[in-house]
């Protein structure tokens, strides 16, 4: 057991820190060219798709360096390394694993160069947690497929150029996991209609999408017909180390402590209230637990042991922290905690009250807590499916 970093790992960390000092000006000093320059520079360094094989334009980066990179980027509150979060997180890895040579050539460089933004068309109105039951239909007619159906909750649909789309090609398959097929579809195909949906925080990040007789060339199929479930599962498995999130949560905790120091409750400093002090300590403990869970799972991966569903452990912690930390801030601030940006007494510019309305992004978006518990119970503890 050794939590220290090797010399080469430390010098990599130093390299990232030096880069950030030179290339990440404070928010107020960033002009309109900043983001474009930033994306080019991180790309030059080989940090976009850092863990991807060199053959595809990645850097073959090791798991620890990857964690260091994520950690330092999060510490510096740097912008993302690419404009297509989903492209980098699972569409790209999915194409590298299951795509044809043409698909790899066509899509991978654009993802790395932030030239296209991808969205993910999995959920449907009647099939969310039970994803494998999807009904959106694709039918092979000559050299193309005809797609009809509806997707919903598609994050980024209003501004994405491409969608990774899950459809059903076989309605008579023996199990619901068979008969699913995955496609890569341009969002400007005729017959695709996007209707943004406003969420409770007032934003329009996700949308419903209607597909009416949309023609998708057969060469845009990802993986074989009927193999879509496998493609999806293995692509989503790429979504892994939680070190970046942990770092973000530690900085949120620092902000929460700052808030506590400047808040009075019933006329007395909130920081003197033992219940407040313990709650902060519990948050800190849970975030630290996530950190060391993550490192323990990372060690397993490095040793070549397959991870099963352990990542659900941190997802559950993250879900509860995501709800509880903002909620704690809002509640601690009393009436002032209700005010949004622009309010005369808004706390921290209304950032807590706003983010307290945003927890479903994390808590529901990536599989609900109940589903994470089912995963742990069934895949790790071996309990019967319900």
């Amino acid at each position: 057991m050794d939590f220290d970093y090797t010399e080469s790992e430390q010098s990599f960390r130093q390299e990232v820190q030096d880069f950030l000092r030179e290339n990440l000006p404070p928010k107020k000093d960033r002009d309109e060219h900043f983001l474009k320059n930033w994306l080019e520079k991180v790309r030059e360094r080989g940090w976009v798709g850092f863990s991807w094989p060199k053959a595809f334009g990645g850097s073959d980066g090791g798991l620890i360096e990857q964690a260091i990179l994520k950690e330092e980027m999060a510490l510096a509150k740097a912008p993302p390394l690419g404009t297509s979060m989903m492209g980098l997180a699972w569409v790209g890895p999915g194409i590298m694993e299951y795509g044809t040579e043409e698909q790899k050539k066509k899509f991978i460089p654009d993802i790395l160069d932030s030239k296209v933004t991808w969205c993910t068309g999995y959920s449907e109105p009647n099939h969310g947690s039970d994803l494998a039951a999807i009904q959106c239909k694709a039918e092979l007619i000559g050299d193309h497929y005809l797609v009809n159906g509806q997707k919903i909750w598609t994050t980024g649909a209003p501004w994405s150029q491409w969608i990774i789309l899950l459809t059903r090609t076989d309605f008579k398959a023996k199990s619901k996991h068979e008969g699913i097929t995955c496609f890569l579809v341009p969002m400007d195909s005729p017959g695709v209609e996007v209707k943004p949906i406003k969420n409770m925080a007032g934003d329009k990040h996700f949308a419903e999408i209607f597909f009416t007789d949309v023609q998708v060339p057969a060469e845009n199929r990802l993986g074989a017909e009927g193999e879509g479930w496998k493609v999806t599962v293995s692509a989503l498995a790429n979504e892994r180390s939680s070190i970046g999130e942990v770092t973000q949560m530690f900085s949120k905790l620092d902000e929460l402590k700052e808030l506590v120091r400047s808040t009075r409750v019933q006329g007395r400093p909130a920081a003197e209230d033992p219940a407040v002090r313990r709650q902060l300590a519990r948050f800190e403990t849970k975030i630290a637990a996530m950190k060391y869970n993550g490192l323990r799972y990372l060690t397993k991966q490095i040793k070549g042991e397959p991870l099963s569903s352990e990542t659900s452990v941190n997802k559950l912690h993250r879900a509860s922290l995501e709800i509880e930390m903002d909620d704690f801030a809002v509640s601690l601030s009393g009436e002032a905690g209700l005010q949004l940006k622009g309010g005369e007494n808004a706390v921290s510019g209304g950032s807590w009250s706003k983010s307290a309305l945003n927890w479903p992004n994390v808590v529901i978006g990536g599989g609900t807590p109940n589903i994470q518990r089912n995963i742990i119970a069934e895949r790790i503890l071996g309990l019967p499916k319900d």
Partner: protein
Amino acid sequence: MNFGFTEEQNLLREQVERFMREDCSLSKVRELCNEQQGFDIQLWGKIAELGWLALTIDPKYGGLGLKWVDLMVVLEETAKGLSPFPILSQALSSTLIDSCGSEHQKERWLPKLANGEMICAIALYDEPNWISEDSIKSSVTLKESSADLGGIKPFVNDANLATHLLVMAQSDDGLKIAMIEKTQAQISVQPTVDTTKPMASVTVNGVSVSRDDLMDCDAEKLDYITNCGALGTTAEMVGSSEALLSLTNEYAKQRIQFGAPIGKYQGVKHRLADIYVDLESFKSLCYFAAWCADDKPEEFARAVSMAKGYSSDAFNQIGIDGVGLHGAIGFTDEYDAQLYLKRSKWARPMFGDSNFHLERIAQLGGI
């Protein structure tokens, strides 16, 4: 960066596992605790022979010169089967001697602790639920070549099993630790919920010790030994929780109600998943704290407080649910789940409960 165990540590784990299976099964534990106050001199000899009492002791004094991570492996595994052997008390005693004793004292005592000839228990605090130098009211009056002890240590783990006791007391010259023979003190075993962790009150009024048997201590060292105690207790909680989760999980697969194993129902399976989440988490915190004990002393206090602050309450709830998820059978004396519930009650206040540790995390975190 490596959060794994070495080949040697894995072998050590297997060795302890085998010992617990073959020599110290739960029925043996029950027998020991009901009839012999938790002790068997032959098995103690075997434990000593296997080297588990010598792990963290310097090779200069007959030890193996290993680390807390190694000791943690032993504590985790022995606690799976609720071993009543005072391995933790012994380890804390040798740690205390190592940090407070003179060269001469180390030479005199550590080899005998390493080979199990001396069995040592530590008597730190005098009041329940008060981890502070101020809680130590027992006194030692220094004289020319001897010293007189006075006071009562009401909650001493394993005092009845020990041959010797290390007694923390206040003197005109600061905190001292006296090494006394058990026979010098009055030991009164107290009835408690957990018979696998015997506890006694120790009265030292009028006990005279030679100056050679006194060690100097201070608040910082007291803090350190308390942290080691909290770490050891957490390692034991990891083992015990794992065993209780496994027992309850197996039962949930076998027990049929409404035509299906109860583990199919989410009221049961989700609770088991939550237990897994808590266990994984305080296990990670415990492993990190054990590493800090030897390799990152400046982080040790905070790391240990996180581990113990999380596990104390979590294990308590695991104990309750471990019994509850079994239904009535869990309530019976004959079934083992209840033994773990009792152990969780023991572990909760030991070396600081969650309130103590969470408060310390807040302080160390600048609040």
